[in-house]
């Protein structure tokens, strides 16, 4: 999971066979969604999909901060 923030990015990894790591990633996902982040599941650079729930089977989740009018 790639989180776009003021550090450039931060990464959280999980293993589908490790329940604890999935739980940790899910908690991080929920915390970011509460802050207004949107999650994009990136199967390839061209085909991203916005998702609302944590998907442990996703290869990459990119967490995008909320935008506002400039």
């Amino acid at each position, binding site marked *: 999971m*790639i989180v*776009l*923030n*003021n*550090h*450039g*990015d931060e990464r959280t990894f999980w293993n589908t066979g490790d329940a604890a790591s999935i739980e940790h990633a899910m908690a991080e996902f929920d915390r970011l969604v509460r*802050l*207004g982040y*949107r999650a*994009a599941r*990136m199967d*390839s*650079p*061209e085909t*991203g*999909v*916005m998702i609302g729930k944590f998907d442990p089977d996703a290869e990459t989740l*990119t967490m*995008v*901060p*909320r*935008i*506002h*009018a*400039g």
Partner: protein
Amino acid sequence: MPDSAAFFYFTHPSQWVYGMNDPLVRAENTLRAHLSPEQLADYLRTRTFRARGNFTKRVYTIVPRWSNNVYHIEHSYMPYEQHVAQAFCTGSDANVPMADHMLIQKLYIETNEFEFLKIACASGRGLVPPHFPGEFHG
């Protein structure tokens, strides 16, 4: 996505001073990893790239600026060859580097264009500014 280490060897001048862990370098690498081969080629050549909206299927050009940096450009029907542009401006809640700023706009356009258009501040339609970088055929 390119998987060779050489691809990420040098991405930003800040790397010479602060190393690979500098936010500007990390953001640049993240952006490049999220670009398709065509977008990456455009980006390396002109520092701009194009993204297709998933709602209207329009093509937007994203340029490296903090404001009014997403352009929708199309051919006009004027007798002389000219283009008409609409600029969109968004900011993000996080204080992100420029490369992340462009990546956020790309992801919004490609995955949630409807919300992007709802939120973004759109300027009036006008001529393409003369300093506009890169190619801009929509």
